[in-house]
C-alpha cells in the first residue's frame, strides 16, 4: 500500500508535465483567464520564476499580448476554458490566422462528460466547428501518458508551420484521474 502511494507520487501530474514541456520549448510568457480546471497549473506557473505570467481581463487581450510577444521574439501561450475560447473567433480570424502567428492555446474543455451547466454545454459545441472552419490544428488530450508527446509536438508544429494550435484538455485527463477508484 505505502509503496503504491510512493509510486503514485513519483508519477508526474499533467500539470507538471505541461510546465516541463513549456520550458523545454522556451514558452516563457503565460497569459490566462482563469478556470477551475487550470487552477493547479496556473498556480505552478506563478510559482516558477522562469515564466512571466499575465492575467488580462479578456481572452482576446491575451491573444493580442502573445501575438505581440511573438512578433518581438518571445514565445507565449494563452490558457483558457471553453467559454473563453468562444469569445475569440474574430481575433483568430483577423489576426492570428491571416498574419501566420503560431498562437498556442491550451483550452480546458468544459461543458461535456457530466457538466451540470447548460451554458457551458452549449458553448462547448461551438469550439470544434470554429477551430475547424478556421483551419486551426487542434487535438484533445485524454491520457496522462499522451501529455508530453502531444503538447511538445503541437508546439513544435505551430512554430514550424507558422500557424495557431489548440491543445484541448479533456475531462478524461483532468477529471477522471482525480476520481476515487
Amino acid at each position: 500500500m505505502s509503496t503504491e502511494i510512493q509510486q503514485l507520487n513519483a508519477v508526474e501530474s499533467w500539470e507538471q508535465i505541461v510546465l516541463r514541456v513549456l520550458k523545454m520549448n522556451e514558452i516563457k510568457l503565460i497569459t490566462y483567464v482563469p478556470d477551475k480546471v487550470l487552477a493547479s497549473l496556473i498556480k505552478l506557473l506563478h510559482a516558477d520564476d522562469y515564466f512571466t505570467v499575465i492575467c488580462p481581463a479578456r481572452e482576446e487581450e491575451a491573444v493580442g499580448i502573445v501575438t505581440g510577444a511573438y512578433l518581438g521574439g518571445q514565445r507565449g501561450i494563452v490558457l483558457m476554458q471553453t467559454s473563453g475560447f468562444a469569445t475569440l473567433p474574430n481575433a483568430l480570424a483577423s489576426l492570428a490566422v491571416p498574419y501566420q502567428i503560431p498562437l498556442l492555446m491550451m483550452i480546458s474543455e468544459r461543458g461535456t462528460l457530466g457538466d451540470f451547466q447548460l451554458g457551458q454545454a452549449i458553448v462547448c459545441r461551438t469550439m470544434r466547428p470554429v477551430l475547424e472552419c478556421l483551419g486551426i490544428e487542434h487535438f484533445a488530450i485524454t491520457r496522462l501518458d499522451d501529455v508530453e508527446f502531444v503538447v511538445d509536438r503541437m508546439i513544435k508544429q505551430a512554430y514550424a508551420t507558422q500557424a495557431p494550435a489548440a491543445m484541448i484538455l479533456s475531462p478524461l485527463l483532468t477529471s477522471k484521474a482525480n476520481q476515487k477508484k
Partner: protein
Amino acid sequence: MNSRSRQDVKVMNRSDLTKRLVAQLHKDEAVIGGIGHTNWDLWASGQRLQNFYMLGSMGLAAPIALGVAIAQPHRRVFALEGDGSILMELGALGTIAALSPKNLTVVIFDNGVYQITGSQPTLTSHCTDLVAIAKGCGLTDSYWAKDESHFDQLIQASLASTVPMFIVARTDNQPPAGVTERDTSKIRSRFMQGIASNKDANQHTY
C-alpha cells in the same frame, strides 16, 4: 495636475499628429497601428519597417504593443488607436497599468465617431472621457493633448518615461492620407525584420 477634459482641448488632425509622432522616432521604436484610419495614416506617414498595421482584431493594438514591449524591454513601443477601438478593450488599460511596462505608450486619436463606417457617434461624443477612464484603470500618466505643441511635448516625454503613458488627442473628421496595403504576411515579416526578432526564438530546428 491634469484636470483638463475633452471639451478643453483643440481638435487636431490625425494625419498631422501621426507625422509629428513619427518624426520624433529615431531609435527604431515599434509602432502598432490599430484597425481602420489609424493605421492608414500610419501607413501614409511613411512605411517604417518598425510599423505593424492591424487589418482586423479591433481593440487589440494596445495588447499587441504590450506583448512587443514585454518581449523587447529595451525598445520603446507605441500603440495608436481610435476611440471606437479602445472603447472595445478598456480592460487592456488595467492590464497595462498592473504590469506597468517602462517602454509602452498608448496614443488615442479621439474623433468621437466610427469614421470608417459612416461617422456614427462613439461614446466619447456623449459623455465618456478616455483620460478619466485610463486614470481610473491606474494609468497615472494619462493626458489630453492640449494642442499640437503639447502633443509633441507629451510624445517627447513618453520617450524618456519610466511608466506607461496614455495620451489622447481630439481629432477632426478629415479622411486619412492613404490606404494601408493589405498583405498580412508582408506586414508581419517586415515588422519582425524591423525589430530584429525573426532570428531569435522562432526558427528552431529539431
